[in-house]
């Protein structure tokens, strides 16, 4: 276990080197909140509720959701694997005595932990500045389920991106897979528009997909909505994570022998 903790630590240390990145990430968080504040202020000028949301309910949802979305940085995993397989340097991970998937998960954990702290500060500061009456659930079971869902959801996204990266071994180019995944994630995680505003049939279909449980449902749960879905949600995302692990195991076994290490 120590080796994975050290991998997480070294990537956290690497983030600290790039100070401008940290600042821009905080600015980006702030910009998103300002933008959301302006948009929803205009929309809520004419009416007091949109769907089941009040203005502050909507803002609270938006802050939690964008905070969680920013913690989801796993696309770098598929990009890194894709690039390294194509240029022949993926062997860097194959020659050291670690589980390669574990290496990427630890790498992601190190980076996410680092940004977690800074994004949390940025979000808190802006809640105070805009005097947003932050809506947050007080139900302990809901909070526990939401936290579990976030953790399993982040693990699932690491697994998914690791899997997509491995597809490079067979298809060389995985741009189309990544594009489909990104669009699906944006839509289903509610980062474009809250899913509560979609027709019920569409939401029902989306509920079978894992992305619904990565940032959208936890955001809703933490801001006091959809509490009846809490336990069910943990179960669904857990099933997806277990299934994805099986798929990764098979893919690794079948495709890793295709690696030829040619490139630079």
């Amino acid at each position, binding site marked *: 276990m*120590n*080796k994975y*903790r*050290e*991998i997480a*630590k*070294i990537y956290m*240390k*690497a983030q600290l*080197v*790039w100070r401008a990145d940290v600042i821009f990430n905080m600015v980006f968080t702030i910009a998103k909140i300002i933008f959301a504040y302006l948009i929803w202020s205009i929309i809520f000028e004419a009416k007091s509720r949109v769907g089941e949301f009040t203005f502050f309910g909507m803002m609270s949802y938006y802050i939690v959701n964008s905070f969680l979305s920013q913690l989801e940085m796993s696309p770098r995993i598929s990009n890194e694997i894709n690039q390294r397989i194509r240029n*022949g*340097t993926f*062997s*860097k991970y*194959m*020659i*050291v*005595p*670690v589980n390669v998937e574990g290496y990427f998960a630890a790498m992601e954990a190190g980076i996410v932990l680092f940004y977690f702290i800074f994004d949390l500060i940025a979000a808190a500061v802006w809640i105070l500045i805009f005097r947003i009456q932050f809506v947050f659930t007080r139900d302990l079971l809901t909070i526990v389920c939401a936290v579990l869902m976030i953790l399993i959801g982040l693990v699932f996204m690491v697994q998914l991106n690791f899997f997509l990266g491995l597809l490079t071994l067979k298809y060389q180019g995985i741009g189309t897979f990544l594009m489909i995944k990104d669009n699906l994630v944006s839509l289903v995680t509610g980062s474009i528009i809250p899913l509560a505003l979609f027709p019920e049939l569409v939401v029902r279909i989306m509920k079978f997909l894992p992305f619904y449980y990565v940032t959208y449902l936890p955001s809703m749960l933490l801001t006091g909505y959809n509490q009846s879905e809490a336990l069910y949600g943990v179960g669904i995302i857990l099933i997806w994570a277990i299934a994805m692990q099986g798929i990764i195991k098979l893919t690794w076994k079948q495709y*890793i*022998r295709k*690696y*030829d*290490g*040619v490139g*630079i």
Partner: protein
Amino acid sequence: MAQKWRKMTNIVETKDITKIYKRYKKKDGLKGSIAGLWKREYEEKAAVRQMNLTIEEGEFIGLIGPNGAGKTTLIKMLTGIIAPTSGEINVLGFYPNDMKNAYKKQYAVVMGQKSQLFFELTVNDTLRLFKEIYEIKEEEFQKNKAYFSRLFEVEELMNVQVRTLSLGERMKMELIVALLHNPKILFLDEPTIGLDAIASKQIRKFLREVNEERGTTILLTSHYMEDIKALCDRSVVINHGLLIYDGKTKDLFDKYQLSKRITAVFDHPVAELKLKKDGVDVILEGEYKKIYNVQKDMTKAVLAEIMQYEPDDISIEEEEIGAVVERIYREGSAVYE
């Protein structure tokens, strides 16, 4: 096939290993690119062909061959990065491509153009990571770190950001990272590529000491004859994926390295040199710079003649590796028994 040098344990054994790569053969032009969307033609290329190789514990072996000969492919198979298409491999009792951690802990590989260092951090940061990855005890870690940083003369660079190091310094650091867990075998693929003469010489000195003091078995590929001559008692030459020589390095150079290249630079104009010797090929005959290919046994005499013209600088280079390999291949020397 391979020689028994000493009565020691074989730690590498390959039997008839072959590696065939399949590659896409695209037709010319845009039309060819479009046609490739529907139907693709592939060709097979054998990078290594039915190779038998045995390496004993503690050996320092030079793996020689021109570009595309199959050297790197062989190292990739021995380290498990790729699987052979056919044949058997046994390294330290493992089939490398099983990629077992127990095997990975016993070898190290340094490839000249592939780095394990974190460029934005210091070497100490990377070493700390590798200490945990290889589960090295703190005491042994400190001892090895001190030993190698002293040996490579880089004690003062351990806390410097890697990206600010020179190429030579970086290569020393790569070697320290690789050697930290006391590997039984060290695979080196072009470790001196791009380095200047001084850095290359230092690296050679360190590798010699690691082999002699620590008993680490080393398999080295290099384009530079100096590397092989200075370090390896035994050389294996491969060309087009075939093993064409396996024997003493000294014998290889005595028999197949027939000429040397002499470059003389003058600070005053010198007309055509009237060299009396046969066996001298003129490569360049400028007023200020002259280059000759000289038969090995004539080198001394030709040098003596050139010295009479008072050159400002003079250098003697070994015949390049490609020419030697080509000669062995042409003469069909096969494997030394």
